[in-house]
């Protein structure tokens, strides 16, 4: 069953259209990679899907688990976070925030969920260490655990491996794949076309021309071959 379908969507900011004619749908358990060049509108699309900016035209039909506020979002790191004095536990807990409404403090269930997700991400050992003292890969795991506290079923990852070294990058992809195997639907923005083609079930190519389909369809399409070749990888494996 489709948990999200996008029909003839036009996205952009107040006085500027970024992209139009978007059509795609996502089923539960899919692993969708959104690829495309810089400035093609990937981030704008993500912000629209998250409900941060309104669509200019067309419609987004949200199924269960995909209402705005039910998506676990892994944003790109900001400068502020790099020297933020907060313990790992505090940050993961903040993922429970949305569910709390006006309730000022976290409940026992929140804390249990946090411990569970920290164990899932293998960061339980440094729950009380400071976020800024962690390595890049560990920081991403913390933010992933936080996203899992906010949403059980859908994760939206914005370039999750930026700035990580190759070994840690591979770990990160494996971690995301294992989440996907557990039934979590993954939407990932990526520059890394090679990884996108290795792990994803579906590809959304944003830019000229638009493409949406399964990975195999993408590899068979002209834009797919072109893009894969230019990114330095033979498209026929």
């Amino acid at each position, binding site marked *: 069953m489709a948990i999200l379908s996008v029909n003839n969507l036009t996205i952009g900011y107040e006085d500027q259209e970024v992209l139009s004619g978007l059509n795609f749908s996502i089923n539960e358990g899919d692993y969708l990679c959104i690829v495309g060049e810089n400035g093609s509108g990937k981030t704008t699309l993500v912000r629209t899907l*998250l*409900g*941060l900016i309104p669509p200019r035209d067309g419609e987004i039909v949200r199924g269960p688990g995909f209402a*705005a*506020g*039910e*998506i676990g*979002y892994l*944003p790109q790191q*900001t400068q*502020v*976070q790099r020297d*933020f*004095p*907060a*313990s790992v536990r*505090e*940050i993961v*807990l*903040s*993922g429970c*925030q*949305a569910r*709390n409404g006006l309730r*000022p*403090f*976290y409940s026992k269930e929140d804390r249990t969920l946090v411990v569970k997700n920290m164990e899932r991400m293998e960061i339980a050992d440094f729950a*009380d*260490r*400071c976020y800024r*003292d962690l390595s890049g890969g560990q920081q991403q795991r913390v933010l992933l655990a*936080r*996203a899992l506290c*906010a*949403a059980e079923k859908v994760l*939206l990852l914005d370039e999750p491996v930026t700035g990580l070294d190759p070994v840690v990058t591979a770990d990160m992809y494996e971690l995301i794949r294992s989440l996907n195997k557990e039934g979590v639907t993954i939407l990932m923005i990526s520059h890394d076309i090679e990884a996108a083609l290795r792990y994803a079930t579906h590809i959304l190519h944003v830019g000229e021309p638009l493409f949406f389909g399964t990975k195999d369809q993408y590899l068979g399409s002209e834009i797919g071959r072109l893009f894969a070749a230019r990114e330095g990888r033979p498209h026929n494996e």
Partner: protein
Amino acid sequence: MSNFLWYLSFPFVRYAFIVGVLIALCSSLLGVTLVLKRFSFIGDGLSHVAFGAIAIASVLNVSNRMIVVLPVTVLCAVLLLKGGQKAKIKGDAAIAMISVASLAVGYLLLNLFSTSSNLSGDVCSTLFGSTSILTLGRSDVALCTVLSLTVVALFIFFYNKIFAVTFDETFSRAAGVNAGAYNLLIAVVIAVIIVLAMNLVGSLLISALVIFPALSAMRIYNSFLKVTICSAVLSVVCAACGMLLSIAAGTPVGATIVAADAVVFGICCLAGSARRRNA
């Protein structure tokens, strides 16, 4: 010590102590958030706005200046923090612009319409808070106490939300938290704190009261909760010591408190780097 007790027998000294400690407590609470949101200078900007508002109030001969100063400062704070992302003139430039403009207008108005015989004395005490803390009446103290306790209560109630919004505004928004409302809350609270703190250290020195304790605590501690508590403690201790010293040595209150904050910051820097080396 007996000397100190003798001082405390005067009601105005007791008032000054109560108000000073409360203001120090409030101003340190949001310091961490402002430093991390890269808004360290907002205190400075808003205090100049408050200076301008005081000038207007005294020109208009309003008996209770708070009626003018508080709304004007709150409005400017809202404009600065709200407009943050969309404004044509961004963050630091907007703050600088508003602050120098209100400083200039305030001084201009005072010069043109002042009824006081000691203009430069008035201006100096507004800027450096040299005496006003010692001239507070009963109603001032009551107002100050109510406002400070409200600020502390709001902060505790919204502590977790403030943390979430400070650490990652985009994530909070995506998760359905009304980040705009909390930014607004932060803006209003900081404006109230600024207006309160003008009594203690004057408008030029307020940023010190807001950011020094937060920066000091961030040198030593590693979690948001510990940093917040530590900065509140440091701020209160520095304010108390500063006031004691200034009474004993006859130095200006505001400047002494800020100097104490600066010294503590230095100590925390050393302690922090020593700790990191050992770790």
